[in-house]
Protein backbone atom coordinates (compact mmCIF):
# COMPACT_ATOMS: atom_id res chain seq x y z
CA UNK A 1 0.00 0.00 0.00
CA UNK A 2 2.79 2.44 -0.88
CA UNK A 3 0.13 4.71 -2.40
CA UNK A 4 -0.79 5.85 1.11
CA UNK A 5 2.18 8.22 1.09
CA UNK A 6 0.71 10.05 -1.89
CA UNK A 7 -2.41 11.13 -0.01
CA UNK A 8 -2.71 14.80 0.85
CA UNK A 9 -3.40 15.67 4.47
CA UNK A 10 -7.07 16.33 3.69
CA UNK A 11 -7.42 13.01 1.85
CA UNK A 12 -5.68 11.10 4.65
CA UNK A 13 -7.87 12.87 7.20
CA UNK A 14 -11.01 11.57 5.47
CA UNK A 15 -9.68 8.01 5.22
CA UNK A 16 -8.62 8.02 8.87
CA UNK A 17 -11.95 9.35 10.09
CA UNK A 18 -13.92 6.89 7.99
CA UNK A 19 -11.55 4.11 9.24
CA UNK A 20 -10.57 3.16 5.68
CA UNK A 21 -7.01 3.26 6.92
CA UNK A 22 -5.33 3.41 10.31
CA UNK A 23 -2.69 5.86 11.41
CA UNK A 24 -0.34 2.95 12.09
CA UNK A 25 -0.69 1.84 8.44
CA UNK A 26 -0.15 5.35 7.18
CA UNK A 27 2.79 5.95 9.53
CA UNK A 28 4.42 2.63 8.60
CA UNK A 29 4.04 3.51 4.92
CA UNK A 30 5.94 6.76 5.51
CA UNK A 31 8.59 5.12 7.71
CA UNK A 32 9.11 2.51 4.98
CA UNK A 33 9.43 5.22 2.34
CA UNK A 34 11.93 7.12 4.51
CA UNK A 35 14.01 4.01 5.19
CA UNK A 36 14.11 3.29 1.45
CA UNK A 37 14.77 6.81 0.14
CA UNK A 38 16.41 8.94 2.81
CA UNK A 39 19.89 7.86 1.72
CA UNK A 40 19.05 9.32 -1.68
CA UNK A 41 17.66 12.65 -0.49
CA UNK A 42 19.25 13.21 2.94
CA UNK A 43 16.02 14.97 3.92
CA UNK A 44 15.86 13.59 7.48
CA UNK A 45 18.69 13.99 9.99
CA UNK A 46 16.86 11.89 12.59
CA UNK A 47 14.00 9.41 12.12
CA UNK A 48 11.87 8.71 15.21
CA UNK A 49 10.49 5.27 14.32
CA UNK A 50 9.36 4.25 17.80
CA UNK A 51 7.89 7.59 18.73
CA UNK A 52 6.02 7.73 15.41
CA UNK A 53 4.48 4.28 15.95
CA UNK A 54 3.53 5.08 19.55
CA UNK A 55 1.89 8.33 18.50
CA UNK A 56 0.08 6.57 15.63
CA UNK A 57 -1.26 3.89 17.98
CA UNK A 58 -2.55 6.56 20.34
CA UNK A 59 -4.22 8.30 17.39
CA UNK A 60 -5.86 5.10 16.22
CA UNK A 61 -7.27 4.59 19.68
CA UNK A 62 -8.82 8.06 19.61
CA UNK A 63 -10.07 7.69 16.05
CA UNK A 64 -11.69 4.37 16.93
CA UNK A 65 -13.69 6.19 19.59
CA UNK A 66 -14.70 8.91 17.14
CA UNK A 67 -12.40 11.36 18.88
CA UNK A 68 -9.25 13.15 17.84
CA UNK A 69 -7.93 16.54 16.79
CA UNK A 70 -7.68 18.31 13.46
CA UNK A 71 -4.53 16.40 12.50
CA UNK A 72 -5.28 13.14 14.28
CA UNK A 73 -2.99 10.42 12.95
CA UNK A 74 -1.30 12.55 10.25
CA UNK A 75 2.48 11.88 9.99
CA UNK A 76 4.57 15.04 9.74
CA UNK A 77 8.26 15.92 9.41
CA UNK A 78 9.69 18.59 11.70
CA UNK A 79 12.46 21.00 10.71
CA UNK A 80 15.50 20.56 12.96
CA UNK A 81 15.07 24.18 14.17
CA UNK A 82 12.06 23.27 16.37
CA UNK A 83 12.82 22.14 19.92
CA UNK A 84 11.39 18.63 20.38
CA UNK A 85 11.64 17.14 23.84
CA UNK A 86 14.21 14.38 24.09
CA UNK A 87 14.71 14.34 20.30
CA UNK A 88 17.63 15.56 18.14
CA UNK A 89 17.42 19.37 17.87
CA UNK A 90 20.56 20.93 16.44
CA UNK A 91 19.51 23.49 13.82
CA UNK A 92 21.75 21.22 11.70
CA UNK A 93 24.82 22.71 13.35
CA UNK A 94 27.89 20.98 14.75
CA UNK A 95 27.92 23.46 17.65
CA UNK A 96 24.74 21.87 19.08
CA UNK A 97 26.17 18.35 18.99
CA UNK A 98 24.03 15.93 20.98
CA UNK A 99 21.50 18.56 22.06
CA UNK A 100 18.18 17.08 23.15
CA UNK A 101 15.91 19.72 24.66
CA UNK A 102 14.01 19.18 27.90
CA UNK A 103 11.09 21.14 26.45
CA UNK A 104 8.79 21.16 23.44
CA UNK A 105 8.37 24.18 21.14
CA UNK A 106 4.89 25.73 21.15
CA UNK A 107 4.39 24.92 17.46
CA UNK A 108 5.17 21.22 17.81
CA UNK A 109 3.22 21.03 21.08
CA UNK A 110 0.22 22.48 19.19
CA UNK A 111 0.63 19.89 16.43
CA UNK A 112 0.84 16.96 18.86
CA UNK A 113 -2.16 18.33 20.78
CA UNK A 114 -4.09 18.19 17.50
CA UNK A 115 -3.07 14.56 17.01
CA UNK A 116 -0.19 14.78 14.51
CA UNK A 117 2.46 12.05 14.42
CA UNK A 118 6.19 12.91 14.35
CA UNK A 119 8.26 11.03 11.77
CA UNK A 120 11.55 12.74 12.55
CA UNK A 121 13.69 15.87 12.18
CA UNK A 122 14.37 17.44 8.82
CA UNK A 123 17.59 18.72 7.32
CA UNK A 124 18.08 22.47 6.86
CA UNK A 125 20.76 25.08 6.30
CA UNK A 126 22.79 25.54 9.49
CA UNK A 127 20.82 27.88 11.79
CA UNK A 128 18.52 28.52 8.78
CA UNK A 129 21.27 30.53 7.08
CA UNK A 130 21.25 29.62 3.41
CA UNK A 131 19.15 29.33 0.28
CA UNK A 132 20.25 25.89 -0.94
CA UNK A 133 20.44 23.64 2.13
CA UNK A 134 24.16 23.24 1.44
CA UNK A 135 25.33 24.88 4.68
CA UNK A 136 23.93 22.02 6.82
CA UNK A 137 26.45 20.18 8.98
CA UNK A 138 24.66 17.04 7.79
CA UNK A 139 25.32 17.72 4.13
CA UNK A 140 23.22 18.83 1.19
CA UNK A 141 19.65 17.70 0.51
CA UNK A 142 18.80 16.42 -2.97
CA UNK A 143 15.76 17.83 -4.76
CA UNK A 144 13.45 15.04 -6.02
CA UNK A 145 13.01 17.13 -9.19
CA UNK A 146 15.54 16.73 -12.00
CA UNK A 147 15.81 18.59 -15.27
CA UNK A 148 14.46 16.59 -18.21
CA UNK A 149 17.05 14.12 -19.51
CA UNK A 150 19.59 14.97 -16.81
CA UNK A 151 20.89 13.15 -13.74
CA UNK A 152 22.40 16.28 -12.24
CA UNK A 153 21.52 16.71 -8.57
CA UNK A 154 19.66 19.93 -7.84
CA UNK A 155 19.25 21.79 -4.55
CA UNK A 156 15.77 21.85 -2.96
CA UNK A 157 16.31 25.48 -1.92
CA UNK A 158 16.77 26.58 1.66
CA UNK A 159 16.83 26.97 4.42
CA UNK A 160 13.84 24.58 4.77
CA UNK A 161 15.29 22.27 2.09
CA UNK A 162 14.71 19.04 4.03
CA UNK A 163 11.08 20.04 4.61
CA UNK A 164 10.46 20.82 0.93
CA UNK A 165 12.27 17.71 -0.36
CA UNK A 166 10.49 15.41 2.13
CA UNK A 167 7.05 16.75 1.20
CA UNK A 168 7.64 16.56 -2.56
CA UNK A 169 9.21 13.08 -2.43
CA UNK A 170 6.34 11.70 -0.29
CA UNK A 171 8.46 11.17 2.84
CA UNK A 172 5.91 13.00 5.03
CA UNK A 173 2.35 14.27 4.60
CA UNK A 174 3.42 17.82 5.47
CA UNK A 175 6.31 19.52 7.23
CA UNK A 176 7.03 22.41 9.53
CA UNK A 177 9.41 25.05 8.21
CA UNK A 178 10.62 28.52 9.11
CA UNK A 179 11.17 31.66 7.05
CA UNK A 180 13.48 34.56 7.89
CA UNK A 181 14.09 35.87 4.36
CA UNK A 182 12.36 33.33 2.13
CA UNK A 183 13.25 29.98 3.72
CA UNK A 184 9.73 28.55 3.37
CA UNK A 185 8.68 30.10 0.07
CA UNK A 186 11.87 29.62 -1.98
CA UNK A 187 12.22 25.86 -1.25
CA UNK A 188 8.47 25.42 -1.83
CA UNK A 189 8.88 27.07 -5.24
CA UNK A 190 11.92 24.87 -6.04
CA UNK A 191 10.03 21.64 -5.28
CA UNK A 192 6.51 22.27 -6.59
CA UNK A 193 5.05 22.47 -3.08
CA UNK A 194 3.02 25.09 -1.22
CA UNK A 195 4.64 27.12 1.56
CA UNK A 196 3.23 29.95 3.63
CA UNK A 197 5.08 32.38 5.87
CA UNK A 198 2.41 33.83 8.14
CA UNK A 199 2.30 37.38 9.50
CA UNK A 200 4.99 38.07 12.10
CA UNK A 201 3.40 37.27 15.48
CA UNK A 202 0.86 34.72 14.16
CA UNK A 203 2.89 31.62 15.07
CA UNK A 204 4.80 31.38 18.34
CA UNK A 205 8.58 31.46 18.14
CA UNK A 206 8.90 29.90 21.60
CA UNK A 207 11.17 26.88 21.54
CA UNK A 208 12.35 27.51 17.97
CA UNK A 209 16.11 28.06 17.68
CA UNK A 210 16.47 31.80 17.01
CA UNK A 211 18.20 33.20 13.92
CA UNK A 212 16.94 36.79 13.44
CA UNK A 213 14.18 37.32 15.97
CA UNK A 214 12.44 40.28 14.32
CA UNK A 215 12.11 38.34 11.05
CA UNK A 216 11.75 34.63 11.99
CA UNK A 217 8.34 33.09 11.52
CA UNK A 218 7.28 29.44 11.25
CA UNK A 219 4.83 27.99 8.75
CA UNK A 220 4.02 24.77 6.88
CA UNK A 221 5.21 23.26 3.59
CA UNK A 222 2.57 20.98 2.06
CA UNK A 223 1.46 19.37 -1.20
CA UNK A 224 -1.49 21.66 -1.77
CA UNK A 225 -3.11 24.88 -0.59
CA UNK A 226 -5.78 23.19 1.49
CA UNK A 227 -3.16 21.22 3.42
CA UNK A 228 -1.26 24.43 4.15
CA UNK A 229 -4.46 25.95 5.55
CA UNK A 230 -5.09 22.87 7.71
CA UNK A 231 -1.54 22.81 9.08
CA UNK A 232 -1.29 26.55 9.74
CA UNK A 233 -4.51 26.45 11.74
CA UNK A 234 -2.88 23.95 14.10
CA UNK A 235 0.55 25.63 14.20
CA UNK A 236 -0.76 29.14 14.93
CA UNK A 237 -1.78 30.20 18.42
CA UNK A 238 -1.71 33.02 20.91
CA UNK A 239 1.23 32.20 23.18
CA UNK A 240 1.99 34.02 26.42
CA UNK A 241 5.51 32.55 26.24
CA UNK A 242 6.34 34.61 23.12
CA UNK A 243 6.08 38.35 23.82
CA UNK A 244 5.68 39.05 20.08
CA UNK A 245 2.78 36.61 19.73
CA UNK A 246 -0.25 38.65 18.69
CA UNK A 247 -3.49 38.35 20.62
CA UNK A 248 -5.88 37.57 17.76
CA UNK A 249 -8.03 34.46 17.40
CA UNK A 250 -6.82 31.92 14.80
CA UNK A 251 -9.38 31.77 11.97
CA UNK A 252 -10.52 28.61 10.20
CA UNK A 253 -8.22 29.06 7.20
CA UNK A 254 -9.65 26.09 5.34
CA UNK A 255 -13.02 27.85 5.16
CA UNK A 256 -11.42 30.51 2.92
CA UNK A 257 -10.68 27.93 0.23
CA UNK A 258 -13.16 28.00 -2.60
CA UNK A 259 -14.47 31.49 -1.85
CA UNK A 260 -14.75 33.47 -5.10
CA UNK A 261 -12.21 36.25 -5.71
CA UNK A 262 -14.55 38.29 -7.91
CA UNK A 263 -13.88 41.98 -7.40
CA UNK A 264 -10.68 41.40 -5.45
CA UNK A 265 -7.98 43.96 -6.19
CA UNK A 266 -4.65 42.32 -7.08
CA UNK A 267 -1.56 44.54 -7.16
CA UNK A 268 1.30 43.91 -9.60
CA UNK A 269 4.45 45.68 -8.39
CA UNK A 270 6.60 46.99 -11.23
CA UNK A 271 9.77 46.83 -9.13
CA UNK A 272 9.65 43.03 -9.16
CA UNK A 273 10.55 43.04 -12.83
CA UNK A 274 14.29 42.82 -12.18
CA UNK A 275 17.25 42.95 -14.57
CA UNK A 276 18.35 39.59 -15.84
CA UNK A 277 15.16 37.84 -14.79
CA UNK A 278 14.60 34.84 -17.11
CA UNK A 279 11.86 35.27 -19.69
CA UNK A 280 10.00 32.23 -18.37
CA UNK A 281 9.55 33.86 -14.95
CA UNK A 282 7.90 36.83 -16.65
CA UNK A 283 5.71 34.48 -18.71
CA UNK A 284 4.66 32.62 -15.54
CA UNK A 285 3.81 35.91 -13.84
CA UNK A 286 1.64 36.94 -16.80
CA UNK A 287 -0.12 33.57 -16.66
CA UNK A 288 -0.88 34.14 -12.98
CA UNK A 289 -2.27 37.57 -13.75
CA UNK A 290 -4.50 36.10 -16.46
CA UNK A 291 -5.82 33.34 -14.17
CA UNK A 292 -6.79 35.81 -11.45
CA UNK A 293 -8.36 38.14 -14.02
CA UNK A 294 -10.38 35.24 -15.45
CA UNK A 295 -11.62 34.52 -11.93
CA UNK A 296 -12.98 38.06 -11.71
CA UNK A 297 -10.17 39.87 -9.90
CA UNK A 298 -9.27 43.43 -10.79
CA UNK A 299 -5.59 43.78 -11.72
CA UNK A 300 -3.87 47.04 -10.78
CA UNK A 301 -0.29 48.19 -11.37
CA UNK A 302 1.36 49.29 -8.18
CA UNK A 303 4.72 50.62 -7.07
CA UNK A 304 6.78 49.52 -4.06
CA UNK A 305 9.65 51.97 -4.58
CA UNK A 306 12.01 50.70 -1.87
CA UNK A 307 11.96 47.06 -3.02
CA UNK A 308 15.58 47.02 -4.20
CA UNK A 309 16.80 48.08 -0.76
CA UNK A 310 15.11 45.22 1.08
CA UNK A 311 17.87 42.68 0.44
CA UNK A 312 20.80 44.95 1.44
CA UNK A 313 18.88 46.09 4.55
CA UNK A 314 18.17 42.44 5.35
CA UNK A 315 21.89 41.63 5.16
CA UNK A 316 22.48 44.11 7.96
CA UNK A 317 19.46 43.42 10.18
CA UNK A 318 19.53 39.60 9.99
CA UNK A 319 23.28 39.16 10.68
CA UNK A 320 23.12 41.75 13.47
CA UNK A 321 20.36 39.83 15.22
CA UNK A 322 22.05 36.51 14.48
CA UNK A 323 25.37 37.63 15.99
CA UNK A 324 23.49 38.42 19.18
CA UNK A 325 21.32 35.26 19.19
CA UNK A 326 24.24 32.95 18.45
CA UNK A 327 26.39 34.38 21.26
CA UNK A 328 24.84 31.72 23.49
CA UNK A 329 26.80 28.90 21.81
CA UNK A 330 29.82 29.14 24.05
CA UNK A 331 30.76 25.56 24.86
CA UNK A 332 29.42 25.93 28.39
CA UNK A 333 25.68 25.33 28.39
CA UNK A 334 25.04 22.86 25.60
CA UNK A 335 26.56 21.08 22.66
CA UNK A 336 30.12 21.09 21.53
CA UNK A 337 33.12 22.11 23.65
CA UNK A 338 36.64 22.35 22.28
CA UNK A 339 39.22 22.80 25.07
CA UNK A 340 41.44 25.91 25.05
CA UNK A 341 44.28 27.31 27.09
CA UNK A 342 41.87 29.56 29.02
CA UNK A 343 38.14 30.31 28.98
CA UNK A 344 38.34 32.84 26.12
CA UNK A 345 40.36 30.43 24.03
CA UNK A 346 37.82 27.71 24.83
CA UNK A 347 35.01 29.97 23.53
CA UNK A 348 36.96 30.86 20.40
CA UNK A 349 38.02 27.29 19.58
CA UNK A 350 34.51 25.94 20.24
CA UNK A 351 32.88 28.50 17.99
CA UNK A 352 35.55 28.13 15.30
CA UNK A 353 34.99 24.37 15.15
CA UNK A 354 31.23 24.43 15.80
CA UNK A 355 30.01 26.96 13.22
CA UNK A 356 30.21 26.48 9.46
CA UNK A 357 31.51 29.09 7.03
CA UNK A 358 28.21 30.79 6.22
CA UNK A 359 27.25 31.10 9.88
CA UNK A 360 30.66 32.57 10.76
CA UNK A 361 30.40 35.00 7.88
CA UNK A 362 27.06 36.27 9.13
CA UNK A 363 28.15 36.48 12.77
CA UNK A 364 31.16 38.50 11.59
CA UNK A 365 29.04 40.89 9.52
CA UNK A 366 26.63 41.28 12.42
CA UNK A 367 29.38 41.90 14.92
CA UNK A 368 30.98 44.45 12.61
CA UNK A 369 27.80 46.45 11.88
CA UNK A 370 26.94 46.58 15.58
CA UNK A 371 30.47 47.49 16.69
CA UNK A 372 31.36 50.90 18.11
CA UNK A 373 31.36 53.61 15.46
CA UNK A 374 29.42 51.68 12.82
CA UNK A 375 26.02 51.21 14.47
CA UNK A 376 24.45 54.39 13.03
CA UNK A 377 25.90 53.96 9.55
CA UNK A 378 24.69 50.41 9.16
CA UNK A 379 22.13 49.11 11.63
CA UNK A 380 20.20 52.34 12.24
CA UNK A 381 20.21 53.16 8.52
CA UNK A 382 18.91 49.66 7.72
CA UNK A 383 16.11 49.92 10.30
CA UNK A 384 15.06 53.28 8.82
CA UNK A 385 15.00 51.78 5.34
CA UNK A 386 12.92 48.97 6.80
CA UNK A 387 10.34 51.53 7.96
CA UNK A 388 10.17 52.80 4.36
CA UNK A 389 9.78 49.28 2.95
CA UNK A 390 6.86 48.66 5.28
CA UNK A 391 5.33 52.03 4.38
CA UNK A 392 5.43 51.10 0.67
CA UNK A 393 3.14 48.17 1.45
CA UNK A 394 0.92 50.17 3.82
CA UNK A 395 0.33 52.78 1.11
CA UNK A 396 -0.66 50.16 -1.43
CA UNK A 397 -3.03 48.39 0.96
CA UNK A 398 -4.52 51.74 2.03
CA UNK A 399 -5.26 52.40 -1.65
CA UNK A 400 -7.51 49.32 -1.67
CA UNK A 401 -5.22 46.55 -2.90
CA UNK A 402 -6.21 43.23 -1.29
CA UNK A 403 -3.31 41.06 -2.35
CA UNK A 404 -0.04 41.39 -4.30
CA UNK A 405 1.10 38.88 -6.94
CA UNK A 406 4.82 38.39 -7.71
CA UNK A 407 7.14 35.60 -8.83
CA UNK A 408 8.41 33.54 -5.87
CA UNK A 409 12.02 33.19 -7.04
CA UNK A 410 14.19 34.64 -9.82
CA UNK A 411 14.98 31.13 -11.18
CA UNK A 412 14.17 27.43 -10.90
CA UNK A 413 16.30 25.11 -8.72
CA UNK A 414 20.04 25.18 -9.47
CA UNK A 415 22.69 22.47 -9.18
CA UNK A 416 24.29 21.25 -5.97
CA UNK A 417 27.78 22.81 -5.61
CA UNK A 418 26.96 25.43 -8.26
CA UNK A 419 30.25 27.24 -8.87
CA UNK A 420 28.69 30.67 -9.44
CA UNK A 421 26.80 30.54 -6.17
CA UNK A 422 29.70 29.10 -4.19
CA UNK A 423 32.18 31.77 -5.33
CA UNK A 424 29.97 34.78 -4.55
CA UNK A 425 27.86 34.89 -1.36
CA UNK A 426 25.89 37.87 -2.71
CA UNK A 427 24.77 35.83 -5.72
CA UNK A 428 23.31 33.20 -3.39
CA UNK A 429 21.59 35.95 -1.38
CA UNK A 430 19.80 37.17 -4.54
CA UNK A 431 17.63 34.04 -4.40
CA UNK A 432 15.57 35.81 -1.77
CA UNK A 433 15.07 39.01 -3.75
CA UNK A 434 11.28 38.53 -4.11
CA UNK A 435 10.62 37.04 -0.69
CA UNK A 436 12.73 39.11 1.71
CA UNK A 437 10.60 42.29 1.50
CA UNK A 438 7.76 40.34 3.12
CA UNK A 439 9.87 39.47 6.19
CA UNK A 440 11.16 43.03 6.46
CA UNK A 441 7.55 44.29 6.58
CA UNK A 442 6.28 41.39 8.75
CA UNK A 443 3.58 40.47 6.20
CA UNK A 444 2.17 37.07 5.23
CA UNK A 445 3.35 35.51 1.95
CA UNK A 446 2.51 32.23 0.23
CA UNK A 447 4.37 30.44 -2.57
CA UNK A 448 2.20 28.30 -4.83
CA UNK A 449 3.40 26.16 -7.76
CA UNK A 450 2.29 27.68 -11.06
CA UNK A 451 4.16 25.94 -13.85
CA UNK A 452 7.31 24.27 -15.14
CA UNK A 453 10.30 25.85 -16.85
CA UNK A 454 11.75 24.72 -20.19
CA UNK A 455 13.64 21.91 -18.42
CA UNK A 456 10.54 20.65 -16.63
CA UNK A 457 11.45 22.17 -13.24
CA UNK A 458 8.77 23.72 -11.05
CA UNK A 459 8.33 27.48 -10.71
CA UNK A 460 6.20 29.28 -8.14
CA UNK A 461 4.23 32.47 -7.75
CA UNK A 462 4.03 34.43 -4.53
CA UNK A 463 1.03 36.20 -3.03
CA UNK A 464 1.57 38.86 -0.35
CA UNK A 465 -1.27 39.88 1.94
CA UNK A 466 -2.25 42.43 4.55
CA UNK A 467 -1.13 41.74 8.11
CA UNK A 468 -3.10 38.78 9.55
CA UNK A 469 -5.02 38.27 6.32
CA UNK A 470 -3.73 34.77 5.59
CA UNK A 471 -7.29 33.85 4.58
CA UNK A 472 -7.08 35.97 1.42
CA UNK A 473 -3.78 34.26 0.57
CA UNK A 474 -5.32 30.78 0.83
CA UNK A 475 -8.38 31.91 -1.12
CA UNK A 476 -6.31 33.41 -3.94
CA UNK A 477 -3.59 30.73 -3.98
CA UNK A 478 -6.32 28.13 -4.41
CA UNK A 479 -7.52 29.91 -7.55
CA UNK A 480 -3.97 29.72 -8.96
CA UNK A 481 -3.70 26.06 -7.96
CA UNK A 482 -7.01 25.24 -9.67
CA UNK A 483 -5.83 26.93 -12.87
CA UNK A 484 -2.24 25.67 -12.86
CA UNK A 485 -2.84 22.16 -11.60
CA UNK A 486 -0.53 20.33 -9.24
CA UNK A 487 3.04 19.32 -9.98
CA UNK A 488 4.79 16.14 -8.94
CA UNK A 489 8.30 14.93 -9.73
CA UNK A 490 8.67 11.83 -11.83
CA UNK A 491 9.65 9.06 -9.42
CA UNK A 492 13.20 7.95 -10.36
CA UNK A 493 14.31 6.71 -6.95
Amino acid at each position, binding site marked *: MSDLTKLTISEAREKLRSKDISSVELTDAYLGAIDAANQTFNAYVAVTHDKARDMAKASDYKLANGEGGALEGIPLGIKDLFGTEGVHTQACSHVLDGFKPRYESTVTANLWADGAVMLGKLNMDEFAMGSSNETSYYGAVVNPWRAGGSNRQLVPGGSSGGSAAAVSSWLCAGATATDTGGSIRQPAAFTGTVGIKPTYGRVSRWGVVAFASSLDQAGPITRDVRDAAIMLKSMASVDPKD*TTSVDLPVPDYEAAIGRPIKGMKVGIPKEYRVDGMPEEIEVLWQKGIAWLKDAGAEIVDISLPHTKYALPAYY*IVAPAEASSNLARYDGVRYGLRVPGKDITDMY*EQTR*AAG*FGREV*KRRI*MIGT*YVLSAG*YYDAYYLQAQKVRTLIKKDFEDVFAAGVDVILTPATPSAAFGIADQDMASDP*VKMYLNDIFTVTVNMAGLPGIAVPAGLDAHGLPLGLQLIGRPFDEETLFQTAHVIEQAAGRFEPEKWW
Partner: protein
Amino acid sequence: MSVDKATVKRVAHLARIAVTEEDAERMTGELNAILGFVEQLNEVDVSGVEPMTSVTPMAMRKREDIVTDGNKAADIVANAPATDENFFLVPKVVE
Protein backbone atom coordinates in the same frame (compact mmCIF):
# COMPACT_ATOMS: atom_id res chain seq x y z
CA MET B 1 33.49 51.34 3.78
CA SER B 2 35.70 48.31 3.60
CA VAL B 3 37.59 46.21 6.11
CA ASP B 4 41.23 45.10 6.19
CA LYS B 5 42.64 41.90 7.62
CA ALA B 6 43.47 43.49 10.99
CA THR B 7 39.84 44.62 11.36
CA VAL B 8 38.60 41.14 10.45
CA LYS B 9 40.79 39.65 13.18
CA ARG B 10 39.55 42.21 15.70
CA VAL B 11 35.91 41.49 14.80
CA ALA B 12 36.54 37.74 14.99
CA HIS B 13 37.88 38.19 18.49
CA LEU B 14 34.83 40.31 19.44
CA ALA B 15 32.67 37.47 18.08
CA ARG B 16 34.81 34.89 19.94
CA ILE B 17 35.66 32.95 16.81
CA ALA B 18 39.25 31.77 16.39
CA VAL B 19 40.54 32.50 12.88
CA THR B 20 43.74 31.45 11.13
CA GLU B 21 45.68 33.82 8.85
CA GLU B 22 44.14 32.01 5.92
CA ASP B 23 40.58 32.37 7.34
CA ALA B 24 41.12 36.07 7.97
CA GLU B 25 42.37 36.53 4.42
CA ARG B 26 39.34 34.80 2.90
CA MET B 27 36.87 36.51 5.24
CA THR B 28 38.26 39.94 4.35
CA GLY B 29 37.26 39.41 0.73
CA GLU B 30 33.85 37.96 1.62
CA LEU B 31 33.01 40.67 4.11
CA ASN B 32 34.01 43.40 1.69
CA ALA B 33 31.78 41.87 -0.99
CA ILE B 34 28.83 41.97 1.41
CA LEU B 35 29.66 45.45 2.72
CA GLY B 36 29.94 46.63 -0.89
CA PHE B 37 26.50 45.18 -1.59
CA VAL B 38 24.83 46.93 1.37
CA GLU B 39 26.53 50.25 0.53
CA GLN B 40 23.59 51.14 -1.76
CA LEU B 41 21.48 51.83 1.35
CA ASN B 42 23.29 55.16 1.64
CA GLU B 43 21.43 56.48 -1.42
CA VAL B 44 18.08 56.26 0.43
CA ASP B 45 16.84 59.54 1.89
CA VAL B 46 15.92 58.64 5.47
CA SER B 47 15.59 62.15 6.85
CA GLY B 48 12.74 62.25 9.36
CA VAL B 49 12.25 58.46 9.19
CA GLU B 50 12.02 56.57 12.47
CA PRO B 51 14.02 53.33 12.65
CA MET B 52 11.73 50.31 12.85
CA THR B 53 11.49 48.70 16.25
CA SER B 54 8.53 46.38 15.64
CA VAL B 55 6.64 45.30 12.51
CA THR B 56 3.36 45.06 14.39
CA PRO B 57 2.10 48.20 16.11
CA MET B 58 1.76 46.67 19.56
CA ALA B 59 3.07 47.25 23.02
CA MET B 60 5.20 44.36 24.17
CA ARG B 61 3.05 42.09 26.25
CA LYS B 62 4.36 41.66 29.75
CA ARG B 63 3.52 38.81 32.03
CA GLU B 64 2.55 39.19 35.64
CA ASP B 65 5.50 39.55 37.98
CA ILE B 66 5.07 36.19 39.63
CA VAL B 67 7.18 33.04 39.78
CA THR B 68 6.07 30.69 36.99
CA ASP B 69 9.10 28.51 36.56
CA GLY B 70 12.08 27.11 38.41
CA ASN B 71 13.37 24.14 40.39
CA LYS B 72 14.72 22.47 37.29
CA ALA B 73 18.45 22.87 37.65
CA ALA B 74 19.01 19.30 36.49
CA ASP B 75 17.10 20.00 33.26
CA ILE B 76 19.07 23.17 32.65
CA VAL B 77 22.47 21.53 32.93
CA ALA B 78 21.36 18.29 31.25
CA ASN B 79 22.88 19.23 27.89
CA ALA B 80 26.07 20.86 29.17
CA PRO B 81 29.41 19.37 28.13
CA ALA B 82 30.79 19.49 31.70
CA THR B 83 28.88 19.79 34.98
CA ASP B 84 29.28 19.05 38.65
CA GLU B 85 26.26 18.83 40.97
CA ASN B 86 24.09 21.04 38.76
CA PHE B 87 26.84 23.61 38.14
CA PHE B 88 28.38 24.34 34.76
CA LEU B 89 32.09 23.61 34.73
CA VAL B 90 34.39 26.02 32.87
CA PRO B 91 38.17 26.42 32.68
CA LYS B 92 39.67 28.29 35.61
CA VAL B 93 38.79 32.01 35.37
CA VAL B 94 40.33 33.44 38.57
CA GLU B 95 43.85 32.55 39.69
